């Protein structure tokens, strides 16, 4: 038993403070992005989700320049960007796509400027890499209270308008007919997503923020049809990917090339991707078996459109 444990967890895993912080912060962020991300996937806003995380890095680098806490920089810019996307995007999906792209472009341009100024003013050239790629092991424990508080607030807001959000995400026409303020809900949701994604981007890097807000929810929506269940499954898949990734990254210190740990972002992203593919294969097998059983019956369910509830919108 002991030997198995030692093979799985490299020595010192449970005694290391950075690992503790990474496990806790990673779990909190994965739960929030998983829950928020289910709606991101249903609403088809993966691009916006990714853009907000990347644009946040402009705020992060500006805050670094001014000596402020980067978290507020990340969040402030992300919320402004969310407002701009909503304002420019109108209702047509293609205009929305272009608006998101332009806001992302402007944000990245600002990030380029601030990062350049950061690098020249402080001569710590590693800033570019840290802000863009982040690292779970660099999370400080002091950040924990504000991370938990912000996560709780965004989950609470989502819980309050859950039914309206769900209805307007699945069918905005139906929601409008039933008196749901679709536009306002859209803005509220975009702000929640901005908070969740920039929180994730600040703590674990922009790559992982995108991976967690899209990957686990998309996987969950392949596995279960019920939105409520998908919220929970997405959170669990996210936590599993992050924790497994941390264990592997810690163990990788003993892999070739010796004495050099592999980045944790790589492991988490690879796991998220594998889970998504595996879920697709699973549902594919299940569907094939079902259709074989109903070989003689008319193929009503063969369209498979239930997998993408948002496609109709």
């Amino acid at each position: 038993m002991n030997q198995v444990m030692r093979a799985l967890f490299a020595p010192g895993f449970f005694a290391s403070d950075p690992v503790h912080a990474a496990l806790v912060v990673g779990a909190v962020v994965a739960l929030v992005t998983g829950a928020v991300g289910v709606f991101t996937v249903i609403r088809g806003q993966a691009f916006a989700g990714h853009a907000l995380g990347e644009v946040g890095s402009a705020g992060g680098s500006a805050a670094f320049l001014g000596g402020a806490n980067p978290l507020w920089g990340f969040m402030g810019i992300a919320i402004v960007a969310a407002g701009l996307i909503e304002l420019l995007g109108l209702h047509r999906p293609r205009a929305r796509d272009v608006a998101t792209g332009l806001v992302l472009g402007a944000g990245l341009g600002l990030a380029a400027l601030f990062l350049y100024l950061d690098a020249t003013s402080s001569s710590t050239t590693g800033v570019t890499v840290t802000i863009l790629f982040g690292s779970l092991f660099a999370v400080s424990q002091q950040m924990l209270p504000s991370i938990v508080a912000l996560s709780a607030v965004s989950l609470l807001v989502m819980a309050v308008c859950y039914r309206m959000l769900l209805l307007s995400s699945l069918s905005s026409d139906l929601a409008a007919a039933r008196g749901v303020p679709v536009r306002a809900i859209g803005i509220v949701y975009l702000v929640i997503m901005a908070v969740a994604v920039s929180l994730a981007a600040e703590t674990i890097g922009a790559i992982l923020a995108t991976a967690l807000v899209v990957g686990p929810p998309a996987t969950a929506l392949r596995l279960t049809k019920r939105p409520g269940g998908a919220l929970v499954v997405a959170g669990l898949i996210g936590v599993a990917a992050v924790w497994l990734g941390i264990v592997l990254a810690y163990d990788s210190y003993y892999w070739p090339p010796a004495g050099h740990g592999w980045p944790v972002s790589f492991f988490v992203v690879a796991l998220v991707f594998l889970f998504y593919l595996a879920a697709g294969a699973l549902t594919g097998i299940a569907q094939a078996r079902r259709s074989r059983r109903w070989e003689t019956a008319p193929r009503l369910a063969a369209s498979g459109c239930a997998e993408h509830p948002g496609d109709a919108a």
Partner: protein
Amino acid sequence: MVNTWIAATLVAVIAGVVGFFVVLRGAAFVAHAIPHGAFGGAAGAVLIGVNPIAGLGVFAVGGALGIGWLGRRGRHDVATALALVLMLGLGALFLSFSVEYAAAIYSLLFGEVLGVPSDELLPIAGLGIACIAALAVLYRPLMLTSIAPDVAEARGVGAQRIETGFLLVVALAATMTVPVVGVLLMFSLMIGPAATAGSLTRSPRNAIALSVLLALATVWLAVAVSYLTYLPVGFFVGTLGALSYGGARIWTARRRGRTAPV
């Protein structure tokens, strides 16, 4: 500096033409994801000591094919996001093994005015010609599947094959433009001028021409100002793109307001 001008001009023409179709198809996410993800390939090429452009090309084409394949089974934007993060995750892995550090990465990400050696001009021009040729062949089916997908299907145009072809064109364009403008802002050069042109004129041919002109103006201005101020090219490209679109939207809105019957 002369090399940069030539390269920047080539880049602007390609970005203007490809960008028109990107905006038409609402494919901004793909146009962002392919060059950005290809950065991982450049990092890998640097690690094994190959020309970064080769790495960019391999990852860009691989990413395009991957997005096309995944997008057939699931949602397109989800597929794009996952392909992007996977490529970037690999990039993070390669970077961590590589001793090449911040400066080289920074110029790949955000562009470099003086970063174009003479021997890179020929491949850039070659890729550009390939891009334009592919778009000329694809022009009619691409327009049809973008504007009227139902009609295209009825006439037997394979939407999926056209989509894959289009993704490959974006990958080609990404590979050639990245060394000048940088992976992060390359897509901004595709979207900004094309979206501005699209909001000013309705005719596709005029829109393409206007988009190329605006892209040229954007890049020339960005390169000149960047050369004078030493600030990154990407900053000017990104902000100019957003500003010109914002300006065009305000102008058309005001003109419409003036001509509309009261």
